[in-house]
């Protein structure tokens, strides 16, 4: 009985640290680091499988504009996190956007959290 309980707790704790979805490994992202993109403008939310993708434009201090591609959850998971296809629309401003960047330095990553101008927080 006690052993069963221990096994259950182990299994349950493992469940929370393992990403629920394993379509691919996350090795491409530096998930130990958070990178913040400031004042991003939404170009498009690709509401698609196997992942939804948020494309944003960020203006660098030197005035150049960079498009960042951010992997978000599959539609099913995104919905379970309260997202809809209208969570982000083209032109939306995201003052603070936190991502796990790609390790290879290209402008892309994994969506973590967006803090909108009205203070609303969108997480995945």
């Amino acid at each position, binding site marked *: 009985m006690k052993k069963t309980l221990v*096994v259950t707790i*182990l*299994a349950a704790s*493992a*469940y929370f*640290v*393992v*990403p*629920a*979805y*394993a*379509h*691919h*490994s*996350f*090795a*491409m*992202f530096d*998930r*130990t680091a958070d990178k913040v993109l400031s004042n991003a403008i939404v170009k498009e939310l*690709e509401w*698609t*499988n*196997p*992942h939804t*993708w948020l*494309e944003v*434009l960020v203006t660098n201090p030197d005035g150049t*504009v*960079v*498009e960042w*591609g951010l*992997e978000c959850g*599959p*539609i*099913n998971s995104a*919905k379970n996190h309260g997202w809809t296809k209208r969570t982000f629309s083209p032109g939306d401003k995201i003052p603070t956007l936190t991502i796990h960047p*790609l390790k*290879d330095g*290209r*402008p*892309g990553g994994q969506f973590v959290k967006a803090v909108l101008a009205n203070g609303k927080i969108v997480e995945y």
Partner: protein
Amino acid sequence: MRASKMMLMLAGVAAATLMAAPAFADTATGAKALARSYKTKPPYSPIHFPVEWTGVWKYTGPNRFDPDAKVLPDPSNSGSIAPVEDPPYNAENMAKWHERKRQNALGIVKDDPTAFCTLPGMPRAMTGTYSLEFLMTPGQVTTITEWMNQVRRIYTDGRSQPDDPDYTYNGHSIGHWENDTLVVDTVAINWKDTIFDASGTFHSDAMKINERIRLLDSGLLEDVITVIDPKVFTRPWMVRKTYKRFQPDYEVGEYSCAENNRYEIGPDGAVNAVLKPQPTK
């Protein structure tokens, strides 16, 4: 003129359909029509299953083959799910597995074909994520795995395994009832392109899977899965999966993996993201 003629024809077809509909409401006539739709007699008996669990089910526990296996620490948080305890590989294949486990520790699961939208296949269809729908119909139990829209057919009409089956992602499954348990045997599973879960555990062409599926008193659905693969394993590998019912208002989503699969094999052999071209000035 031509359009209105078409409309008349359509109206005629619709009227005929409406008139035909009441006839099918008559059970006897409906059964005759059903029988006539087969070239020979239906291949099943009228009583098909002692227990019925048609509906949409949710996988419980972690998304991997062995739900009780403790996984190795993942300091890089890469999503690695390599089990602490090794699967029962024989000496030759244990070496291959350990190399894969080493890659796992680096987060490189380059041997997961589903990253490029292949079907998860068996036994992954029964251990996946999101929902698992069961449809129980005469002569066949069908499962639909929401992840990858994967459809699996288990023939319960008494047929045997083919003499020389083609190898497919799901393999060939036949089932029979032992009291309230659906016993399913699966053979001919594509061994090049299917794995047990994202840890990259592999099998050979000799793999056979036995499943014992039953509804528990608790309301959970249980699948006890035994994998026998004498080419790579030293003993049967058995796991127990359970599923709980989704609420009736749960709608299974479409999952077309090829819709927008923005991944490629990177220079290090691992999966990497495909980005859009930068905006031009």
